[in-house]
């Protein structure tokens, strides 16, 4: 199953694909931080943690922008993920409750919420 197909599909296939991708992102947003927090062997741990910090929230955001260009999509996904990571971690440090597990959990929650919104919003009207 193609989870993160960036290429625009024909319209009749897009809505179904949108739902599948949103659902996949919600699942990844929940499961990946949990997987990283279990501290599995490398490179699984690094891949899981890096995907939460560098990709998932940004992909959820970039999908909301309906960017057709894969280069812009990828750039936005990476930058937005980094921005979420920076702001979440900094906020937690300011209030004195930072931990990497909590940061990843919040980033996963952001991913799930944004992906859920993306799945619920009907941009066709």
């Amino acid at each position, binding site marked *: 199953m193609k989870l993160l197909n960036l290429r625009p599909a024909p319209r009749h296939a897009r809505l179904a694909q949108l739902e599948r991708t949103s659902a996949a992102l919600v699942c990844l947003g929940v499961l990946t931080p949990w997987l990283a927090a279990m501290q599995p062997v490398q490179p699984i741990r690094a891949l899981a943690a890096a995907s939460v910090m560098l990709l998932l929230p940004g992909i959820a955001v970039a999908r909301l922008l309906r960017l057709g260009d894969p280069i812009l999509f990828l750039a936005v996904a990476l930058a937005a993920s980094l921005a*979420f990571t920076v702001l979440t971690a900094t906020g937690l440090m300011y209030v004195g409750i930072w931990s990497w597990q909590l940061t990843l959990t919040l980033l996963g929650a952001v991913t799930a919420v944004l992906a859920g919104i993306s799945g619920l919003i009907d941009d066709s009207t």
Partner: protein
Amino acid sequence: MTDIADRRASDVAARQLSDAGDRRARDAEDQQVSDVAEDRQVTEVVADRRAADGPVNTRARPRLDVVIGVLALLCGGVAVWSAAGANPADLGDGGLAPSLPPVFWVAVVGLNLAFVLSLGRRVPSWLSPALVTGLLLLLYGPASVLGEAPRIAVSWRHLGVADAMANGVFDPSIDVYFNWPGFFPGLATFIEATGLPPLQVAAWAPVVNVALWSLGVAAALRAFTRDKDAIFIPLWLFLIGNWIDQDYLSPQALGFLLLLVILALTLRVLGATVQGGAAGLRNFWRAGTRVPELDDGRVRRRTLALVLLLSVALVSSHQLTPVVLAASLAGLVLVRRSWAPLLPVIVGLLLVLWMLYPASTYLVGHPMFGQEEAGVVQANLTGRVAGSPGHIAIQGVRIALTIAVWALAAVGVAQSWRAGLRDLRPYVLAIVPFLMLPVLNYGGEMLLRVTLFSLPFVAFFAARPLAGLRPRWRHTASGLGRPGVARALVLTLLLSVLCAASVTAKYGNARFDSFTDAEVQAAGALAGLAPAGSVLVAGATATPWASQDYDGYTRRTVQSICEADFAPDACVRSLRGLADHEASTGGITLLLTRGNQASLEMQGQMSDDDFARFEEGIQDLPGTKLLFTNRDARVYHLAPDPAPTGSEL
């Protein structure tokens, strides 16, 4: 007339894009849009090729493409492999370049030849990224494998700040990092969560950062053209011209990525065009209606929200980049190509708010705005071109490379203007960073930083004259024939020379900004040798220290302590005075390394003989103890004078 006709064709295609209805409709008509884009691309290629007086060829050569892709990755790999053997202790004042084996330079030529052979024709979508990956490895891979530990002392310090913050230290009175902390909690999270060795993260940061920047540059440049060559030649030049070495593990690297992505979104999603305006540059503001390039208001609002989020992350992470962002956005508003005229104001407000509250501790006594004390030119240029003959030669290469790219850009600007390119956005984004030069006070580094900020858009123009040297592909009855040899060779040679200059410039300080295991071992031993809270002194800023116990010690350098007088005797007296001053913590602990000596010598502060006399003077001081020694470093303890004279008191 041909140019006008082509421009009209491009305008029609562009209008077809912007008039294609709202975003939803465009999504639904993806195929048509991509066809329009394709038409536009071909139109622009044709226009460029006509300008270069050559035919365009869109027929594929799949076998050649595979060879080019493999060659690119092979050249990148060979370059990294050949640089991995270099030991900083064996390097001279010329840095890494003179020590590289011939195979490295063969890889430089081979990679540029591969790139040139991908120009002037249609190629598969994977080929250009493969070529860029090859260049990334060739130019930036050596940064990751040079020496026996991560290079650039500042990246060690940044690991230390992240480590301190992870351990609950969040005190803005410590230094500037704790006033713009955003990058460091993110780094701490990354290191802790991935479980990767921090030094490996720092070592490979340049390659990763520049890869991310390349995405941002390509995304931004696609706002101006869809022509593959008009995007990848500037990207190639950007990678070559970026000798500035701000790509290590740093807030600047993150800030530059955020800046590029914000600009890309502003140009492409929040862009505006002026319809019905009067002709001519002088009238651009007087008449016409500003209309959004993207009709879908929902997507524009979401993009605006994302841009604000990115801006907050940027403002919290770096003190300089948000200023350049606000100015660049204001420039786009002034030429009426932004649909969000309040965006620069909002970014400015975020910046002011950050300075008023989280960063206020640091700003007392450290003004951001205002001229350098030494004057702009002295602080940014003449004051930096000093030191040993080899080091001055390296500075010459850096200046020559920068001027070469700027000169190409100047030619490109003239050609673009003559060809009727009246899209003011790239001009604005290339120029605006330089307006910051006399305004911002950044410790003599502003020229380097503004060069980096403007480089993507300077490279956009610099690529234009080079595009005229693209090979002409001959048609044959069976398909695409061979390219014209002369143009391909000239362009290959030119790009290879620029690449060689880039390697020379970027790694010109490798003798002292790269480290050996012995130096790392000595710096690591400091924590066990010096009492907590005491003052640690290293010979120079080029020291692999502070990656742990960042807030546990006060760290100073001979370079700063002896700034007024580097004469060995005077410098020994200064250190003695500091040891007396720190009597309450038992004196100071002094680390002298191979790289420290090289740094002082290359920057003209202390010759090798003076350094030897200085170290002898330290050893002769009463109470000095040698605590640690190895091949490349010594650690001394300087005790306070037990019987200070009256004058010393």
